[in-house]
C-alpha cells in the first residue's frame, strides 16, 4: 500500500469519526449518556493539553489542576463580580493561567524528572490552599454557585446538555488541531528531542528552557479553558473542586494509558477509562468509595509494566502484525 493510500484511508476514517461525534447527541437523547460523553470529551481535552508538555517533552506534571482552577476562578469572578460573559472569561482565564505558568515554570523547571513532578504537585496544592484561606479573594472554602439564568447562550448557559456537548467538542477539536500543528512543526521535533534526552537536545542547539516555557504556556492556557467550561457545566465552584488533585491525576493518566506523546492517545485513554468507570458504577453502584480509582490505578500499573507505549502502541503493533501477515497486494 502506498503512503497516499494510508493517508486517504486516514482522512476517510477521520471524516466518519467527525460525522459520528457531531450526530451523536441527535441520536442519543438520554441525558445520562450525554453527561458521560461530555466527561469523555472534557477529560480527552484536558489530557490533550497535558500531553503537549507531558507527552511530547516528557515534563511529567502532576499540577495541571493549578491552571484548571485558575481558569475556573478567573471566569467565575469576572462573571459574578463584573457581569462579564464566561466566553470572554474563558479567554481571560487562559491568559491568567498562561501568565501564571511563567513564574511556576521558572521555579519547577529548575528540577528534572521526579523532582519536577513533586514541585508541580506542590504549586497546585499551594494555590488551592491560598484560595481556601483568603476569603476576600474568592468566597473561601464555602465556594459559590453560579447564578442560573436559564437559556443564556451568551453567558455559556444552555437548556440542553447537547449544547454543552458541542462546546466541549469544540474545545477538544481546538486541542487536537493545536497538537496536530505542533507535531508537524519544528517545535514538535524540539519537544520530542527534549523528551528523549534534554542534555543531548541542548548540545545540538535546542533552546530547551525556552521551548519548555513555551509549551508549558500553551498547555496551561488550554487547561484553563477546560476549567471555565467545567464550572459553567456544574454551576458550582469551590477550591477543592477547581483545584482537585484528581484533575491533575486524570490528565496524566488518560495520556499514559492511551499512549503518551501521541495525537490520539489522550482521547483513546479517556474513552477506555471513563467507559470502565461507568460500567463499574452501574454494576456496583456508587456506594463504595475508591472503586473507580482502584481500577484506574491497576490499569495504570498494567500499562506501565507491560505496555509503556499505551493503547496507541498496542494498536500500532497489532496493525503492523496484520499488515505483515497480509498477502501483499500490488
Amino acid at each position, binding site marked *: 500500500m502506498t503512503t497516499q493510500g494510508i493517508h486517504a484511508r486516514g482522512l476517510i476514517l477521520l471524516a466518519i469519526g467527525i460525522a459520528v461525534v457531531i450526530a451523536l447527541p441527535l441520536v442519543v437523547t438520554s441525558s445520562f449518556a450525554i453527561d458521560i460523553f461530555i466527561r469523555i470529551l472534557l477529560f480527552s481535552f484536558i489530557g490533550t493539553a497535558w500531553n503537549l508538555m507531558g507527552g511530547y517533552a516528557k515534563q511529567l506534571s502532576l499540577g495541571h489542576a493549578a491552571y484548571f482552577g485558575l481558569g475556573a476562578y478567573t471566569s467565575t469572578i469576572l462573571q459574578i463580580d463584573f457581569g462579564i460573559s464566561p466566553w470572554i472569561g474563558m479567554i481571560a482565564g487562559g491568559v491568567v493561567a498562561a501568565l501564571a505558568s511563567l513564574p511556576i515554570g521558572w521555579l519547577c523547571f529548575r*528540577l528534572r524528572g*521526579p523532582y519536577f*513532578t513533586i514541585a508541580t504537585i506542590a*504549586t497546585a*496544592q499551594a494555590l488551592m490552599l491560598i484560595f481556601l*484561606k483568603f476569603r476576600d479573594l474568592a468566597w473561601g472554602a464555602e465556594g459559590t454557585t453560579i447564578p442560573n439564568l436559564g437559556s443564556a447562550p451568551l453567558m455559556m448557559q444552555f437548556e440542553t446538555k447537547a449544547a454543552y456537548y458541542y462546546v466541549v467538542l469544540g474545545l477538544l477539536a481546538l486541542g487536537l488541531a493545536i497538537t496536530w500543528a505542533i507535531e508537524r512543526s519544528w517545535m514538535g521535533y524540539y519537544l520530542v528531542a527534549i523528551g528523549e534526552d534534554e542534555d543531548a537536545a541542548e548540545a545540538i542547539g535546542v533552546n530547551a528552557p525556552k521551548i519548555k516555557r513555551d509549551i508549558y504556556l500553551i498547555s496551561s492556557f488550554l487547561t484553563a479553558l477546560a476549567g471555565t467550561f467545567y464550572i459553567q457545566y456544574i454551576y458550582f465552584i469551590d477550591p477543592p473542586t477547581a483545584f482537585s488533585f484528581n484533575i491533575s491525576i486524570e490528565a496524566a493518566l488518560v495520556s499514559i494509558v492511551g499512549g503518551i506523546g501521541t495525537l490520539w492517545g489522550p482521547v483513546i485513554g479517556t474513552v477506555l477509562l471513563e467507559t470502565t468507570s461507568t460500567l463499574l458504577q452501574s454494576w456496583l453502584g456508587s456506594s463504595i468509595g475508591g472503586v473507580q480509582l482502584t481500577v484506574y*490505578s491497576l490499569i495504570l500499573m498494567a500499562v506501565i509494566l507491560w505496555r509503556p507505549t499505551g493503547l496507541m502502541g498496542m494498536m500500532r503493533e497489532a496493525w503492523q502484525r496484520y499488515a505483515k501477515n497480509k498477502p501483499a497486494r500490488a
Partner: protein
Amino acid sequence: MWETVAQAVINGLLIGGIYALVSIGVTLIFGVVKIVNFAQGEFVMIGMYISFFLANQFGIDPLLSLFVSMPVLFLVGVLIQHFLIRRVLGPNDMPQIFLTFALSLLLLNLALMLFTANYRTVHTSYSDEAFHVAGLYIPVAKLIAFVVAMFLSGALWVFLHTTDLGKAMRAAAQNRDVAMLMGINPNRVFCVALGIALALAGAAGSLLMPFYSAYPFVGQVFTLMAFVAVVMGSLGNVIGALIASLLMGVAESLGIQYVGADSGLIVVFALLLLTLAFKPTGLGGKAR
C-alpha cells in the same frame, strides 16, 4: 511570649521526628535505587492500620505493635522491589514516576474500600499524659514517638556505616555501576533498601497511633512533607533529610501558631518554593 514560641518549637520538633522517619525512607530509596517513592505515606497509613487492628482486636499496645508493623512492611518492601520496581529500572522517567504513583493511588483507594473513610483512633493509658516542664507542655505519647524515631534513625546510620550490607548500600548509592563491578548484587541491595525504608514508614505509623487518627488519606500529608524535606535536605542524604524534617515540623508548628490553624501546610509549601527559588540543589548537595 517566649513560652508560646518555645511550645510551638517543641510541638514541631516532636512531630518532626515522625516526618524524619518518613523522609529518611524516601531519601534512602532515592539514594540507593534512584526512584522517588510516591507511596511512602501510604505505608505509614498501613502501619497505622496494622497497629489499630492489633490494638482493637487483641488489645496490643501500639508501641508493641511496632514489632509487627516493621517486619511486615520490610517484607512488603522486598516484594515490591522484587516484583514491581525492578521491572521499571531503566533510563525512562515515566514508568519510574508513575509506578509508585499508581501504587500510592491503589493502596489509598483499597484502604478506602476496605476500611471506609472513618477516622480510627486508639486510646492508650498514656495518650492523655503529659510532662509539665518550666511552663511547657510535653505529651508523653509524642515524646516516646520522638525518642524512638531518633533511636531508629541513629540505628540506621550505624547500620549504613558499620555493616557490610550497609556499606554496600552506600556504595550502590554513590555509583551503582562501580558497586556492581565490585561484586555487589544490586537487586539484593535494592530489596534491603526498600525493606528498611518501608519498615521505617511502618514504625512511623505505629508510633503515631497513640495520638493520631488513622484514615485512608492520612499518608498524603506525610508524603508531601517527606518530599519537601528530601528536596530541602538534598536528595539521598540521610542526615540532611533528618535535619530538614525537624525544621519542617517546627516551621509547620510556627505556621499553625502565627498564621492560622489551617496554615501549617502553606508555610511548608512556601518553604519548598523558596528552596526551589534560591537553592534548587537543596540545602546541601546537588538535586540530580
